[in-house]
């Protein structure tokens, strides 16, 4: 059974077809990259999958269950979690408190109305922080964290939701090479039970991490296959460099 199956997803903004009849299948345990030049519709497709935005047409199936009509809140509860590109997080909280928010939601217990010390929530939050490489930063407030650290915190948040499908939105954006390397390690270290779908611009990162790639161009799927296939594809190269258009404009 596939983890994610999208069929015929479409969404327009006025006359602009941001996502046009997109099919996307993600296999269990895959590290699946979603790439494409600017304006290809990656962000919009991402939002259609998470449920932040409603599709005009098409279906989204998570672990065989149709979630097309479900909100992003419900999809998260069903096993889909995401990181957000801009990592704006919670300005008044420490790293631990931030992750604890996610842990307490997915711990299977009700959210209490009275103060109660829950060491197991705190312990799990600290564990997740250590997993993403933020071990010494538990009591630091979010605004004092470096940009790269905030991106790591985003991943910890997403992992705290016990996802079967983890969606990463440009996880490496704005990162230094050292931070980028740490991110690669982090994603490679994720357990096989968690399937990863990530949107990324950095093609080196994509080819280092991905075992499946889908290329979007002008809202449609240009190619879906292994990294090697995508690398070799003439059509993909043209989409990124626009060679064909140049020829159309200026002759051969």
């Amino acid at each position: 059974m596939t983890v994610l199956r999208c069929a015929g997803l479409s969404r327009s903004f006025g006359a602009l077809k941001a996502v046009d009849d997109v099919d996307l299948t993600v296999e269990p345990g895959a590290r699946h990259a979603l790439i494409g030049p600017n304006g290809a519709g990656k962000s919009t497709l991402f939002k259609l999958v998470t449920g932040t935005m409603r599709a005009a047409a098409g279906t989204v199936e998570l672990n065989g269950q149709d979630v097309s009509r479900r909100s992003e809140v419900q999809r998260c509860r069903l096993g889909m979690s995401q990181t957000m590109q801009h990592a704006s997080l919670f300005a008044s909280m420490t790293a631990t408190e931030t992750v604890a928010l996610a842990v307490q939601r997915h711990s299977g217990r009700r959210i209490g109305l009275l103060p109660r010390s829950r060491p197991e929530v705190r312990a799990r939050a600290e564990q997740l922080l250590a997993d993403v490489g933020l071990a010494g930063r538990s009591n630091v407030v979010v605004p004092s964290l470096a940009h790269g650290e905030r991106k790591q915190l985003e991943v910890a948040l997403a992992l705290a939701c016990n996802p079967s499908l983890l969606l990463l939105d440009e996880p490496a954006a704005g990162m230094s090479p050292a931070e980028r390397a740490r991110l690669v390690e982090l994603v490679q270290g994720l357990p096989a039970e968690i399937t990863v779908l990530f949107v990324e611009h950095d093609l080196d990162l994509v080819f280092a991490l991905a075992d499946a790639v889908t290329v979007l161009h002008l809202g449609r799927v240009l190619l879906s296959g292994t990294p090697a296939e995508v690398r070799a594809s003439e059509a993909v190269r043209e989409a990124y460099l626009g060679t064909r258009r140049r020829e159309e404009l200026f002759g051969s």
Partner: protein
Amino acid sequence: MTAAPQIEVPGGAAAAPPRVTRGRGLLVAVAVLVVLAAAPLFLAPFATTTLTRIVVFALFAVSLDLLVGVTGMPSLGHAGYFGAGAYAAGWVSINVTAEAPVPLLVGAVFGALAAALTGWVTVRSSGVFFLMLTLAIGETLQQVADSWESVTGGANGLAGIPATRVAGTALANPGYTYWYVLVAATLGVALVVLLARSPFGAALRGIRDNEPRMRALGYPTALYKYAVFVVAGSAAGAAGALLIAQQRLVTPADLGFMTASFALLAVIIGGAGSLWGACLGAALVIIVRDALGPSLDGHGTLVLGIAFVLVVYLLPRGAAGVRLFRRRT
């Protein structure tokens, strides 16, 4: 591409609101309560009455701070629920019984009811739209109080409310009334503080800081906001019941724009989100309005308005202390 929303570091280094350690905070609270409880033994009746009004307003302000400071929902119509509780408690005291805790419970229930009926619309909006909507609600409730003469007494309000009775005896003495109000208000404030410190309260703060992120974590934020709106309305309604215990009168003005603005001022002066700060702010507002008012020709409102303007300019962390609205970069 829109610019990435910045994380503000308001006030520089200390970005998070000051965290008083639990133990010390509790000690201070107990000490304050002891002083407050002993106060009527040393104060003249007028001062005791003013202190009673401060305590009532403090519960009201704390209920508003739960909305504004903890959850990030800036309401300008909260007086509507305060007044709804006051009218309900007053009506029950006149027509059914004034035996405690009935008026208090009726006030809390009616505050919750009014909030529940009007809140489902407001929680779908946020920021300035929410502000406008709550303003409209407060004004609407005031007009209802003004025109529904048969029940509310119309523009003159509900007068002649009998004193609340505790165990059969009427609280005719300002001192006894004060103690009743103090006990009830302390209970109310304590419940709100406990809620704010609970996991639910942590979720509210998450919603205040970044609602979309909370939804992406699986929190049904609209439901949470509705719930806290009703709870805050209930606490405000309870404060209204305490108002009539002291004042024996409620008028449409108690539901209006002025009352709501003063409550918001109290919350902001004290530092939104800290809850105990709202108590301090409430004390300041009542003292200026009622105690200093006569020496200012009854124009304490003018001073408070100016204070409002100054506070907004001078508070380093901004009026709300934390980010309530997304700032355009």
